[in-house]
């Protein structure tokens, strides 16, 4: 019954935010506020080993030292956040112990994910994607466990990984994004509830795409998930994430941390379709998406590639980065960021070249409509040790309407004379010539705009897995509703 939904979900998108429903699920919520007790409680709930509790406490103390001052250098505006007025833990109440199979999962939950078009029932083998569904920061189901286990790939929630693979978690957690990194990373490290964990053993090419679906449901709850992906020598993995949240009048805080580690010759491809609730047309509500994402191309010849399509959130603040540590390693960043109405996005990447012959490519496309403000902010840093490093950066902005803003702020730091670094950027509106060409062939003004904008984003959509690319196109269209034509 639900199967066709997956296929048709791209066509049934409506102008309004379709994922704005609230699921009536009994959930267990920690009292509001954050102190050491809450951190200990979260850790105890998850029956965590000592090293993790220590990690959390250190992070919490660090966060306290930062004095409640979130970074304000980004070109986004928001009222002060009362960090004591949030729930730091919310989880759907499980029936008995953790679910043995999908039959044990609350049907309401399965239905919620069905509505989102997320196939967590194993019957939907057709889609060929293994999914970890995360509901209010807690992993509720992971599909295709057996198939993955046969190939040696570990794909589970971080909580499970902590229980079953504590050595891996201890070794890599915080190794790319230390808890000292920034305000939100410290907060996340202290209170993260769940997230996905992936480990791909040496020489293994992960047989299917892995996907995590994030859903915020509970009100006044911060979502702090933590994703850790480790690709061992010579392995390959493609990972997708999608996210939605219900429509709420108040803002919701989402402060995730994603860490990727690629060892020698390994490749990680990480794709994001970010569609958190963007708030209404007047800018009420919506998710504050303050995320730290970073990959370490640690081994020789390793490669990390980020692709993101950012259409949701009231505020987006994220810079998926790559530390190019291994010689001959590669980093890529492909991004489409769209803002409409009162949305604000300050997003970009950091490419830190440390190893010899390291290469990075950045292609960022920004679209501003309505009263939105879109900033590309990126750093390319070539360290003295990075002999023959090269970077190519292209960032283009498109303005739709005269009340929006498009900003480009690249930081380029070169400390090696053999480096080759090129940066190009342009900002303009949809050209009248192109619109005229389309319209004289009978295409409506609105349709012509979509065509041009779609073409503008083509380079990025091509980097996405097919089904995601289809969805991204639709998402773009829905997000632009009312802005063009």
């Amino acid at each position, binding site marked *: 019954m639900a199967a066709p939904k997956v296929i048709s979900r791209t066509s049934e998108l409506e102008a309004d935010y379709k994922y704005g429903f609230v699921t009536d699920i009994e959930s267990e919520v920690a009292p509001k506020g954050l102190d050491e007790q809450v951190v200990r409680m979260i850790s105890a709930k998850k029956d965590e080993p000592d090293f993790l509790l220590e990690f959390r406490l250190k992070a919490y103390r660090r966060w306290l030292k930062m004095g409640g001052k979130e970074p*304000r*250098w980004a070109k986004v505006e928001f009222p002060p956040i009362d960090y004591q007025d949030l729930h730091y833990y919310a989880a759907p109440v499980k029936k008995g112990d953790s679910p043995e199979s999908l039959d044990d999962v609350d049907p309401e939950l399965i239905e919620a994910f069905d509505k989102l078009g997320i196939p967590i029932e194993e019957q939907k083998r057709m889609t060929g994607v293994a999914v970890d569904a995360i509901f209010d920061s807690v992993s509720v189901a992971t599909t295709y466990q057996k198939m993955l286990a046969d190939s040696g790939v570990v794909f589970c929630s971080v909580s499970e990984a902590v229980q079953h693979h504590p050595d891996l978690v201890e070794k890599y957690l915080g190794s790319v994004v230390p808890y000292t990194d920034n305000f939100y990373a410290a907060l996340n490290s202290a209170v993260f509830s769940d997230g996905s964990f992936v480990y791909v053993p040496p020489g293994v090419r992960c047989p299917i795409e892995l996907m995590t679906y994030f859903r915020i449901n509970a009100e006044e709850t911060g979502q702090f998930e933590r994703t850790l992906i480790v690709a061992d020598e010579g392995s390959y993995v493609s990972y997708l994430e999608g996210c939605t949240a219900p429509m709420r009048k108040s803002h919701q805080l989402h402060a995730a941390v994603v860490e990727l580690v690629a060892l020698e010759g390994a490749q990680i491809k990480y794709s994001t379709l970010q569609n958190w609730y963007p708030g209404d047309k007047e800018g009420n509500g919506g998710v504050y998406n303050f995320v730290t994402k970073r990959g370490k191309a640690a081994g020789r010849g390793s490669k990390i590639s980020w692709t993101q399509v950012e259409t949701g959130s009231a505020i987006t603040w994220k810079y998926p980065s790559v530390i190019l540590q291994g010689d001959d390693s590669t980093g890529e960043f492909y991004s489409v960021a769209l803002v409409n109405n009162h949305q604000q996005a300050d997003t970009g990447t950091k490419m830190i070249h440390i190893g010899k012959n390291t290469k990075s490519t950045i292609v960022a496309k920004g679209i501003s409509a309505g009263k939105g403000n879109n900033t590309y902010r990126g750093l390319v840093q*070539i360290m*003295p040790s990075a002999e*023959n490093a090269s970077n190519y950066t292209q960032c283009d*902005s498109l*303005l*739709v*309407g*005269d*009340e*929006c*803003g*498009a*900003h*480009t*702020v*690249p*930081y*380029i*730091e*070169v*400390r*090696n*004379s*053999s*480096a*080759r*670094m*090129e*940066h*190009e*950027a*342009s*900002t*303009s*509106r949809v050209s009248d010539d192109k619109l005229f060409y389309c319209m004289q062939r009978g295409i409506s003004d609105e349709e012509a705009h979509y065509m041009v904008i779609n073409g503008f984003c083509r380079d990025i959509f091509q980097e996405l897995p097919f089904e995601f690319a289809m969805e991204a196109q639709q998402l773009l269209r829905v997000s632009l509703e009312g802005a063009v034509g």
Partner: protein
Amino acid sequence: MTQSLTGYERYAADFEALEGMEPPNGSAWLRGVRREALAAFRRLGFPAERRGNERWKYTNVAPIARSTFAYPFDVDMDAVTEAFLRQQGPWSDDWARLVFVDGRFSALLSTTFDGDDGLRLVNIGAALHKDGGGVRQHLGKLAQSGDGFTAVNTAFLGDGALVEAPDDTTCERPVHLVFVSSGASPDRVSYPRALVLAGRNSRLTLVESYVGPGDGRYFTNAVTEIVAQEGSGVEHYRYMTEGAGAFHVGSSYVRLGRGSSFRSTSFGRGARIARNGLSVLLDAPGASCVLKGLYYTTGSEHVDNHIDVDHAGPGASSDQYFKGILDGSSKAVFSGRVLVRPNAQKTYARQADKNVVLSDGARINTKPSLEIYADDVQCFHGATAGAVAGDAIFYMRSRGMDEETARSLFVHGFASEIIDSIELPALRSHLDRMFSVGPPGGG
């Protein structure tokens, strides 16, 4: 902590001493402007903050803020000779010129040709006492938007250059403003100041030179304001070679009227920390500016070009083109910002910064940024930093040229794109010599 960094007290003490020396019948207007500026400096301090300080992200001015530089109450005007000036910077006997030693006007070294082509060229200090009207209307107005450095300069406002081209006048004779530091001890600060007024449909060519002895430790804190009225054209050159131990912070503020054009080329070399700040406000249709720059750093020098272009009115265009050559363990910074305000439709803006890094110890930080709030615009920027030097030098060496010659030839070729566009033969030949084959900087 901020207190000790800004060194407000030290500057305030000098300020009081200076005010005490003013004649009691001095200009009340001037006293008011100075006091206001000192209060602004007290509030702003020097921009030494390291966190969240985007305008000074790559240039740490703490060494300036922490040092004590004395106000030059007594200047030995004979310490600098014309021969020294001819040797230090560009020079032509045909140019009208005002010379300032440690910020103090030198009538002896200056020559104005009595304004034979209609130009008014005088010391601001004198002009303020005689007829305040036009000067007061503009002096310090554009600079009000400035930072702590500009505020201190205004607080010590005294001598300075007033360059005024009346309406509908073409001033054929280039104007040369020479600001020279004596390098006398104790370490001293000077406050060069210039106000340039280009009347309607006037034409004006201006060269600013900032020079000093090779070894002195001093601080030059310069402010230039340029107001170009409707239909005027200003050709502007800024030449800076301060000593290797010197600090230089230059802040230029330009306002362009309807249909006016401003073409500026800056050259920066030397100095322990040198900053060339240039803010251009285009708030009328048809205004245009072309801002070029060439910087060459060696040793442990640090040169920072900070360009702010504000498109506040529609139909204006701006073009920035900067080139940098870095050697030794020097550092160079380019940060160009283009702001296109909501009503500034039909704006054309371009930014480009190209760099060659000749040695591994050198470091370039470039940040060309665009901030755009209007949709019918064409804005671009580009930046490169490349190892082109290696390939080019290899090519020349494979044809039998020695390393030194090959490098110099490359540097000269890279720089000539900017140098060749200079309209003034005397300045062009001076820079040609500076970048010609031979040891860097030699003739």
